[in-house]
């Protein structure tokens, strides 16, 4: 039964392959050829090694089956010469001799299999099945390599395959863009690639001695804006991404996606009305969101709860003209739900993007956001942890040695600054002024009381209040006390946030 199955299998898989058979014994040759012809569409037969080699050179058969001892040229001599032509040639040696010497020589030459005569038919068939299977695997591998090479070659993006800081391969688009003849010439060209990255605000280029390649490798998977000049001398805007090749040390594919058409490099057109500018901004932003989604790159979402920053990464799942769907963590979803808005940052955005919440889907872990607006601040620039002090906390402000009688509230506090809300502004107070403050933080029973000398960093007027950010550099003892207070307050706020029923 097993024999029959093997016959069937060989008959099926051998139909695309050719075989060369070399045997000087006419009887055996006739008998074996008959069997081979049952399975293989093309069988070549030779009487000795010399004839076998000539047939091999002429027809390049897929499989060679050969005897050892033959006139003119032995089977092993022939196998050696065939291997010199094609190291991947599949050669099966058959021999009536059980001599170790032959076997060892066969191994040295790299023959595929050594079979001892008389060969049971089932063993021969089993061997041929195995050989054909390995040939098919090789064929698939070559096909895959061919097509991936094709995909690499004809991609619409510029692609460069690098190992350490050397270019190994560059695709057609890349060679065309940089007017380089071939990947070998490009290799030398790539050594000075850093000089091609043109300076532009918030773009990637060599600055302060920081190597551009190391920067993108450290943030592999992130997107970077880069500006390059094409061979005609025109500036082009690309989105650059480095993807690490798994299991290959320090190997990356650099991909450059040309987004010049979005016009982000252009100076703002001052002739546009406010409405037209907003419309143009919106079109550019939607295009950027598409680029981020296409590259499956993470964005960062920022929210806050009573001054405490809550931030996680997310991915853009869908981009429509009036809303986007973002997948993020459960914690961030809750924070967005509570604030009804979030601020998004991406390396690709010129500024942070504020969006309103449309709806939350806790099952799919997604949030729908709309009404996008670029805002002139980056939440990621906030260096220190801030917290809103308890309602019982108080602050007294002394300006020009006079205590301010105005009602002042601490909106949030950190180790290097405080955000204050004034009902009205003390007379003459302006930015860079020095202030003395007496701060009482925490519960009434054991408050932390600190005298802090501060400087006004900024003042902004709102509808019913003025807000001032004051900064300070505390001496070690006071700093440690404030650190301790903020760390405890931070914990209390986290507990409060997690316990909020309306957060979900």
């Amino acid at each position: 039964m097993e024999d029959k199955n093997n016959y069937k299998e060989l008959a099926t898989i051998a139909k695309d392959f050719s075989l060369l058979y070399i045997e000087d014994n006419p009887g055996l040759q006739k008998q074996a050829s008959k069997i081979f012809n049952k399975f293989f569409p093309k069988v070549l037969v030779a009487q000795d090694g010399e004839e076998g080699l000539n047939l091999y050179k002429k027809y390049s058969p897929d499989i060679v089956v050969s005897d050892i001892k033959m006139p003119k040229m032995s089977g092993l001599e022939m196998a050696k010469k065939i291997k010199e032509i094609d190291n991947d040639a599949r050669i099966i040696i058959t021999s009536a001799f059980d001599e170790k010497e032959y076997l060892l020589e066969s191994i040295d030459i790299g023959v595929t299999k050594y079979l001892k005569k008389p060969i049971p038919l089932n063993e021969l068939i089993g061997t041929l099945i195995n050989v054909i299977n390995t040939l098919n695997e090789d064929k698939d591998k070559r096909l895959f390599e061919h097509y991936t090479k094709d995909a690499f070659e004809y991609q619409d993006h510029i692609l460069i395959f690098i190992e350490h800081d050397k270019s190994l391969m560059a695709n057609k688009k890349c060679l065309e863009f940089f007017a380089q003849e071939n990947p070998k010439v490009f290799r030398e060209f790539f050594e000075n690639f850093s000089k091609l990255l043109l300076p532009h605000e918030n773009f990637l280029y060599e600055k302060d001695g920081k190597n551009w390649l190391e920067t993108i490798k450290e943030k592999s998977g992130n997107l970077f804006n880069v500006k390059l000049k094409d061979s005609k001398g025109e500036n082009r805007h690309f989105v650059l991404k480095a993807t690490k090749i798994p299991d290959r040390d320090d190997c990356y594919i650099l991909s450059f996606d040309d987004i010049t058409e979005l016009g982000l490099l252009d100076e703002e057109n001052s002739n546009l009305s406010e409405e037209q500018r907003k419309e143009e901004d919106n079109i550019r932003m939607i295009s950027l969101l598409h680029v981020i989604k296409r590259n499956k790159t993470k964005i960062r979402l920022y929210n806050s709860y009573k001054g405490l920053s809550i931030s996680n990464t997310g991915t853009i799942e869908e981009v429509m003209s009036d809303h986007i769907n973002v997948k993020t963590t459960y914690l961030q979803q809750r924070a967005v739900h509570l604030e009804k808005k979030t601020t998004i940052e991406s390396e690709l955005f010129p500024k942070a993007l504020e969006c309103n919440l449309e709806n939350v889907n806790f099952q799919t872990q997604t949030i729908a956001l709309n009404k996008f607006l670029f805002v002139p601040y980056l939440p990621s620039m906030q260096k220190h942890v801030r917290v809103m002090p308890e309602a019982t906390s108080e602050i007294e402000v002394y300006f020009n040695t006079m205590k301010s009688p105005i009602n002042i509230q601490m909106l949030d506090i950190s180790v290097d600054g405080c955000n204050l809300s004034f009902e009205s502004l003390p007379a003459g107070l302006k930015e860079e002024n020095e202030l003395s403050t007496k701060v009482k933080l925490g519960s009434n029973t054991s408050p932390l009381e600190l005298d802090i000398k501060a400087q006004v960093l900024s003042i902004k007027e709102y509808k019913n209040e003025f807000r001032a950010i004051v900064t300070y550099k505390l001496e070690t003892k006071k700093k440690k006390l404030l650190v301790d207070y903020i760390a405890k307050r931070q914990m209390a706020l986290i507990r409060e946030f997690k316990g909020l029923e309306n957060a979900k």
Partner: protein
Amino acid sequence: MQNEKVIYDDGDHKCIVFSFDNEETEESFLAVNQYLIIQNKSAILIDPGSQSSYDEVFDGVSRYTDIDNLKYIFYSHQDPDVAGSIANWSVSCGARQIVPKLWMRFMSHYGLMNFNRILALEDKGAKIHFGEDYLHFIPAHFLHSPGNFSLYDSRSKILFSGDIGASITSVYGAKNQNVNFDEIKENMEGFHKRYMAGNKFCKAWVKKAREHDVQIMAPQHGSLLSGEEYEKFLSWFENLKCGGDLIDEIY
């Protein structure tokens, strides 16, 4: 200062060991080391320790650099003697907190909700630039923590090995670099046999460690090992039967 020592200094790059904490039981005394690497105006604090040692470590760091120069704080794993002070350190400065990704879910318990401040290490580790040189985070999982890393500093060639190589010693013995491995082997054995998960992990870590040119091994507990003594430790550790290999002793 009796419990701090500069273990590397080439003018631009400096490594300091502090031993501001200890773990005392009836039978043993385990000194807890904290490390600081400074290169010009950048610094990284390694395994800053428990909340109770925060004040002393803060003062220790301040003696060498401004707290605001801390660019990174690295927590090799989640134990309280490593990461107990996360909340305080996250408030003190703007440094990025480097933690094994496995422990990200614990961060809100430690008081961190701003995940932009965290650099989460994937299982295979990472290599980051530090001044002109680099820091390599080497997987040390299950030795003992399931999410754990050692840190190799390419400039000083010091391997900060976390719990690996920990030995029971007095607080003053911690900074001794001229330790003979054979003399402290006995002090290491009990801890490693009980805390490390199994020989398979020891072997994997030793293989990774050998990829680097290590001059000094600086563990989180006990003495530093260098040169031949470090080599002796590697040979001992890669053959150590521990944890799951000795399951019958504890079950």
